[in-house]
């Protein structure tokens, strides 16, 4: 087994950390640094620079040009030629070519593995929301960030082979920018409530029709879109009250409940059965009967 295959096997068999009790945001980041290091080991084997190094390059570009320049920066950092002009014929570093040619590294498998890591990050952040009230805003943004990255990664296989190069390029640019933020958050170099992170994430959240995410353009400010998305995902994946979801979304109870319905998320109201409906102390007036 090659080193790359060994690393992938290690990642695929790692314990799921979603059931960690009392994990504030900093703990999530600490725990996920191991995943980041593992990904960097994969990249190193393939002859690529580290994610954090590349992420810093991407996010150093001014906000206005970031989305358009993101892929070119990554291509340059990773020594990939022709990515923008002829994505189907893009040249890649030799070590990467060898790995693919030897079939020791399955690109879809690698993508799925990264998506799995992202889902674990999302679930850990959602769990942190339920376990503690200490870092609500940070945790709910992390939930939103890793949800969107996961959605985009999940769509990667379908989009990467699409004939529409413009769509493919747009998709990849957004993924690169968001992953760059995520990498630096996990690396401990960026706060999850960083203004630029919220701006980039909010922009992608507003473009849901172009992607396979479940985000809807119902909120205006980027931070509101991000918090609403994070709160919806937490409500969908953990048992919290509607009022708590509204609190996380910084919205009214009615607004949050309306958003739940709009996103086809079951509202946990009760009771389920007629028997349960009457399962409580009855009221009666002394004048009754």
């Amino acid at each position, binding site marked *: 087994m090659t080193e790359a295959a060994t690393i992938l096997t290690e990642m695929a068999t790692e314990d799921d950390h979603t059931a960690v009790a009392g994990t504030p945001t900093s703990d999530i980041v600490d725990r996920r640094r191991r995943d980041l290091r593992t990904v960097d080991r994969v990249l190193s084997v393939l002859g690529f620079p580290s994610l954090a190094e590349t992420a810093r390059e991407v996010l150093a570009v001014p906000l206005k040009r970031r989305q358009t320049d993101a892929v070119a920066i990554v291509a340059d950092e990773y020594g990939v030629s022709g990515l923008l002009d002829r994505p189907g014929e893009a040249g890649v570093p030799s070590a990467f070519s060898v790995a693919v040619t030897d079939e020791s590294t399955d690109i879809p498998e690698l993508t799925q593995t990264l998506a799995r890591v992202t889902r674990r990050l999302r679930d850990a952040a959602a769990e942190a929301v339920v376990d503690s009230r200490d870092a609500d805003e940070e945790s709910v943004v992390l939930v939103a960030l890793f949800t969107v990255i996961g959605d985009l990664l999940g769509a990667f296989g379908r989009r990467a082979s699409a004939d529409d190069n413009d769509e493919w390029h747009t998709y990849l640019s957004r993924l690169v920018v968001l992953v760059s933020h995520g990498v630096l958050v996990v690396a401990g170099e960026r706060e999850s409530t960083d203004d630029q992170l919220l701006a980039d994430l909010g922009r992608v959240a507003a473009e849901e029709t172009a992607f396979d995410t479940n985000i809807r353009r119902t909120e205006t400010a980027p931070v509101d879109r991000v918090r609403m998305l994070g709160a919806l995902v937490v409500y969908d994946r953990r048992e*919290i009250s509607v009022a708590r979801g509204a*609190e996380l979304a910084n919205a009214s109870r009615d607004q949050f409940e309306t958003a739940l319905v709009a996103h086809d998320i079951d509202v*946990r*109201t009760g009771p389920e*059965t007629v028997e349960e*409906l009457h399962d409580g*102390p009855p009221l009666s007036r002394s004048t009754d009967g």
Partner: protein
Amino acid sequence: MNGRFVLDNTVLSGFAAVGWLSSLGVWHPEYELTTPEQLWTDEFRPNHDHERPAWLTVQPVERQVDPERTGQLSDTDWRCLSLANRLGAVLVTRDAPLKRRANEEGVRTKWQGSLLIETFETCGITTTAYQESVGSYLANAHLSTGVEDEIRAAEK
């Protein structure tokens, strides 16, 4: 007095949205109906044009949060739970996670739908008003079909 009930925002807003809030007064003074002051001031009043009815008492409540799964409930959910605990009252809600959590904490609970039926049956809501608005009420309550049918079919 026959008992105390703490009403959460699902009850107050659910009844107010279809014009039935005043109907709850039918239980006063035999029952004490109360809600946390923070809920009334910060959550209900900003969204509803209602002065506080005389039958409803509001009480300031210090938030007491159980150390387990503190993020499961909102700030006012915790205050409702604390108030019901302090008064030995029954907490009325239609939120399932809040009700489950209250039961875990040893607080007695009652579904909002059950309170609605009893309020109608005890003539707090006229038959005409009930028939006119029960559809709107149910449209926003997100209940199972069986429970919806039970509420729709209530009779005096």
